[in-house]
């Protein structure tokens, strides 16, 4: 349906921009993983290419294919990432907090610490 040369050029330009954006997300993740000081800030950088970068690359691929047949599986791939990335980030972050793989001197405010203190005051442990 889009056989005119101008539409082809426009779609190619869009796909090119999306490809470069996706590559930039991965580059940002790499730089962030190298430069950032502790686990949770590295996680902040590491989740960039998981959702936005892969979305850009999948959109670019779907645009260059010029067919609707591959769109459901592209949506499946991205939706699966969108569902699983927060869960794994949550699990890793919680595990990192509990096992103290973090630098407390870099924190400005620890909201979870006050919550932990309040819970342990309301629920004293019955040891024995």
């Amino acid at each position, binding site marked *: 349906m889009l056989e005119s040369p101008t539409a082809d050029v426009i779609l190619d330009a869009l796909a090119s921009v999306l490809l470069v954006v996706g*590559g930039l997300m991965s580059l940002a993740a790499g730089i962030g993983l190298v430069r950032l000081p502790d686990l949770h800030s590295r996680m902040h950088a590491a989740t960039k290419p998981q959702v936005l970068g892969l979305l850009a690359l999948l959109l670019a691929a779907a645009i260059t294919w010029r067919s609707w047949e591959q769109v459901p599986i592209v949506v499946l791939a991205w939706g699966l990432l969108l569902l699983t990335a927060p869960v794994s980030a949550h699990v*890793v972050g919680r595990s990192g907090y509990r096992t103290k793989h973090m630098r407390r001197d870099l924190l400005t405010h620890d909201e979870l610490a006050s919550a932990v203190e309040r819970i342990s005051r309301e629920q004293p442990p019955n040891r024995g």
Partner: protein
Amino acid sequence: MLETAVHITQVLLALGAAGTVYRIYKGPSVLDRVISLDVMLIIVASMMIVDMVINDHQDFILFVVVTAVIGFLGAVAIARYVVVRSPEEVVPDAPAHDPVPFPPAVPVSSSSQQAGEPETPHQPISTPVMPGVGPLEDESTSWFSALARSGFTPKRREGPMPEEAEPESQQPPAPESPQPPEPESQPDSTPKPESTSSPQQQEDRDA
């Protein structure tokens, strides 16, 4: 134009993968390596997408789908078995161990550099210890074990209380039959409210 964009993207992905490999190699803890491996997997999937774009085929799209699931399972499974850092290296109120807040970007793997890394565990290989159990327990993880040991369950009300039985019986008679456990649990108090409420009901009917 598309080929140029593909080449640029490949270079960017390669640089990102280089940073990821550096963090996997250098990463002071297992969790750093886990998130780096996650990013590595995503970059591999991105490489497959770029290959599909430049060669115009759709062979690898299922691998991209599988990649998402594998990264998720790996992160969740490894994060379950992370060793608690030993307490002597956790000094929460002390000033910064390292005057430079960022680790050096240049991958120098000398021993002095490793000592300067603030998160390097003293024993990189140790037996997995459940968090909150044993001598490694301290303030920031003890709340979890305390919550686990306290056997906290939301309290359930067992049967109607005697304070509640009287106002229920003083209410106007409901068309439904009363609940069966009520007269069984309070056999002595049930005649009283009926005797006191029956004149009130008669007065209400007269008025």
